[in-house]
């Protein structure tokens, strides 16, 4: 397993006092908190910071960690010293705060044990557990899957007590049907699929699409058109989530104008629409013929700025 440099994770020196550690943690926690942050890898970063703080804020754990010595480097191959756990440290059970420790590294677990796992959910303050625990998970799907519906396999981890009475994380897989027309951020409730018979809530995120921009159930697509197609009108083939269709561009259309294809967005009641955003693209004047035609258009006496700034 890899050594973790907790001081580096928090960006503090090895002789930082508890106040400095707390300040560093708070600052980084605000920066990377998954509910707040738009940073890439925010969740992974946040876990690093939490793990580091879990150790360094507790004088006993910090002392134990410091005893490993200063010569370790982040990521270095680490093996627990043979005399570990004989120094009078006892970390199992109490002493852990509400942090959701289920996701801490092997390095952390080898030093401080995993017996406390599963206590995470109840640490948030004010939770009650009179019945099975509801569980929350997030799933990312493509826009195509949101349009057509899909079946996805998800993996969940739950703490379970094994035959030896040890608490260990147990993986289980579920095949979940994602209904067509699900919107970004919507939740699916799976009755009885949470921990110990609670419900599982699955929050659905729709990944950004290469072509289509999503807004609720509506999608929009930029359609490049030639000046004469915009001016004279044209029929052009455009992709929709349900396959290619022919759209009519009315004569006299302008760049930036939006055309609506009714009911071609995500399905639902009512179904969303697809918008075509026209974008006029002028051909390059890189041949004699092209230049001649542009010169000829010049004689139209058209001034695109007429009245624009008055």
């Amino acid at each position, binding site marked *: 397993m890899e050594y973790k440099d907790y001081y580096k994770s928090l960006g503090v020196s090895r002789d930082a006092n508890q106040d400095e550690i707390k300040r560093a943690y708070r600052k980084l926690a605000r920066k990377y908190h998954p509910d*707040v942050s738009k940073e890439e890898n925010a969740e992974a970063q946040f876990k690093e910071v939490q793990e580091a703080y879990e150790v360094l804020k507790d004088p006993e754990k910090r002392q134990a960690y410091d005893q490993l010595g200063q010569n370790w480097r982040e990521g270095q191959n680490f093996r627990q010293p043979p005399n570990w756990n004989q120094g009078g440290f006892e970390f199992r059970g109490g002493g852990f705060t509400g942090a959701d420790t289920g996701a801490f590294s092997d390095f952390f677990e080898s030093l401080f044990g995993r017996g406390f796992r599963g206590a995470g959910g109840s640490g948030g303050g004010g939770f009650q557990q009179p019945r099975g625990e509801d569980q929350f998970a997030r799933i990312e799907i493509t826009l195509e899957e949101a349009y057509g519906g899909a079946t996805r396999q998800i993996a969940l981890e739950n703490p379970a007590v094994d035959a030896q009475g040890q608490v260990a994380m147990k993986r289980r897989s579920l095949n979940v049907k994602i209904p067509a027309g699900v919107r970004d951020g919507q939740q699916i409730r799976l009755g009885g699929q949470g921990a110990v018979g609670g419900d599982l809530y699955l929050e659905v995120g729709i990944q950004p699409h290469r072509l289509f921009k999503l807004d609720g159930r509506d999608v929009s697509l930029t359609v490049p058109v030639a000046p004469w197609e915009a001016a004279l009108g044209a029929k052009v083939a455009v992709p929709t989530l349900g396959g290619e269709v022919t759209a009519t561009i009315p004569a006299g259309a302008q760049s930036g104008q939006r055309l609506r294809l009714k009911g071609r967005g995500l399905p639902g009641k009512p179904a969303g629409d697809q918008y075509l955003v026209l974008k006029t693209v002028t051909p390059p004047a890189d041949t004699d013929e092209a230049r001649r035609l542009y010169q000829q258009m010049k004689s139209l006496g058209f001034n695109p700025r007429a009245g624009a700034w008055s």
Partner: protein
Amino acid sequence: MDIIEGSLIDRDTLYTLHELCRSSGVHAEVIVEMVDGLLEPQGRDPVEWRFPGSSLTRIRSTLRLRRDLEVNLSGAALALELIDEVRRLRERVHALENQIESGR
């Protein structure tokens, strides 16, 4: 393996206080406290309260913020409001950028 079908929680799905407690695993007192600025149920008193489906996510986020950032409920409420506002502004900037781009 069996394929499990769930029910979609819609914006139109409404929860009673009791249902919300059950689904979120949070004590009623905590939720009552959150109604003071954080959750906005329809109805006048707790028995009549109906919470929108989005309340669940809000409760989870609030409790996580409170736990991880060591802020109180008002602090978490403020953070969530600002996060919502930033998201709206980001979407707006995004839409305007698209318009500018396609107008070119």
